[in-house]
């Protein structure tokens, strides 16, 4: 194999791995083709080839890795922030499912179910317009009641709230004809 093809293969390998690629590992892969010294030369050439590019190959932690260029770090950070924000955390999903199934529901009631403080999560969900305030509950303190928004339905691809798969539905259709004992199971749904 010529050096050029070797370099091309290494580029492909660098792309798919997110950890530094070390020479020993490469030597294993290229067994019959290149020895360690040859591979080291290949890597050095690759580093210098990439000098002109917009991303870099760096030697790091005993291996080689593709990485971003320092001068674009602001943009990378900006992207990360937006990217992270686009997925829901596990906590957010938990709260969201509680609200979806139990709305209207107050913060205290959600926390009663989850057993942890949910202020931060509720704020995030409100910011992302996945939930909305439905009004105030007529009890002491008049706490806010939350419910899901139209965006919630878009996010999960639901046509309407009745499209939510409900636990009641499972229990009804799946056991009613067999046992006639609906109430026994439905009593304390954890959602």
């Amino acid at each position: 194999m010529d050096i050029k093809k070797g370099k091309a293969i290494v580029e492909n390998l660098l792309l798919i791995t997110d950890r530094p690629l070390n020479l020993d590992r490469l030597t294993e892969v290229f067994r019959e083709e290149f020895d360690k010294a040859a591979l080291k030369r290949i890597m050095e050439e690759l580093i210098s080839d990439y000098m002109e590019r917009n991303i870099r190959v760096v030697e790091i932690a005993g291996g080689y890795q593709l990485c971003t260029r320092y001068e674009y770090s602001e943009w990378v950070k900006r992207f990360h922030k937006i990217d992270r924000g686009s997925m829901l955390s596990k906590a957010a999903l938990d709260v969201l499912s509680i609200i979806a199934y139990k709305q209207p529901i107050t913060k205290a009631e959600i926390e009663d179910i989850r057993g942890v403080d949910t202020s931060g999560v509720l704020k995030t969900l409100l910011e992302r317009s996945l939930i909305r305030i439905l009004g105030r509950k007529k009890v002491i303190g008049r706490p806010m009641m939350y419910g899901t928004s139209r965006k919630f339905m878009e996010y999960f691809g639901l046509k309407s709230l009745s499209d939510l798969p409900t636990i009641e539905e499972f229990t009804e259709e799946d056991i009613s004809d067999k046992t006639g004992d609906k109430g026994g199971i439905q009593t304390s749904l954890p959602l």
Partner: protein
Amino acid sequence: MDYKVKLDIFEGPLDLLLHLIKEQKIDIYDIPIALITGQYVEYLEMMKTLNLDIAGEFLVMAATLTHIKSKMLLPSQETEDEETEEGDPREELVRRLLEHKKYREAALGLREKESYQREIFTREKGDISSVDDEDLLVDVTVFDLLNAFKMVMKDISYKVPYEISIDEMSVSEKQNYIMDRLNEFHTITFDSLFAVMTHRIEVVATFLALLELIRLRVIRIQQLKRFAAIRIFKAVEDG
């Protein structure tokens, strides 16, 4: 017992029919119904000899073919009018065969794309376990879980239901069962949890136990990788 034909080649009666039509180089718009019915039934006999379960759909199709055959044998109506009313008894079958064939071919197109795409690789996902817990991105939502559960319930609908009350198979008992298995195996798959269960009440109780454990944050539900099975872990590893 899952009631399904485990023949690799023929996924269903329409597949079998298409195979016969192709093999005999028959015009799909003018199927010699007596011939095809004979061969179809022959195949079913062969399956029986091989001791294969023959799914109900195959038998329904045999009945359909026999019925068309008998209709074709009836003395045909003489007047143009009545023939129009009566139509060709094969028409509906042909429509279904063509429809089936169309998606068959589409599936072949997808197979090609699949084969190509399997040779293309993209950057790995970061190791999920190294991600800070607050940032942990779960692939499994409650909705996924409910869907998975619904599928489990569908599967189990084939099984003989027992008369059992929820008291006997209490949710907390199932919670203990799940935790016992997690103590033993570190992680279990969602499906394996239900695999041994034979009645609906037990499945429902187990699912409720699962939801309860999630609520209590004793367990977590994740997919480690894309396409991986839904897995159950203890929320906190001991030792």
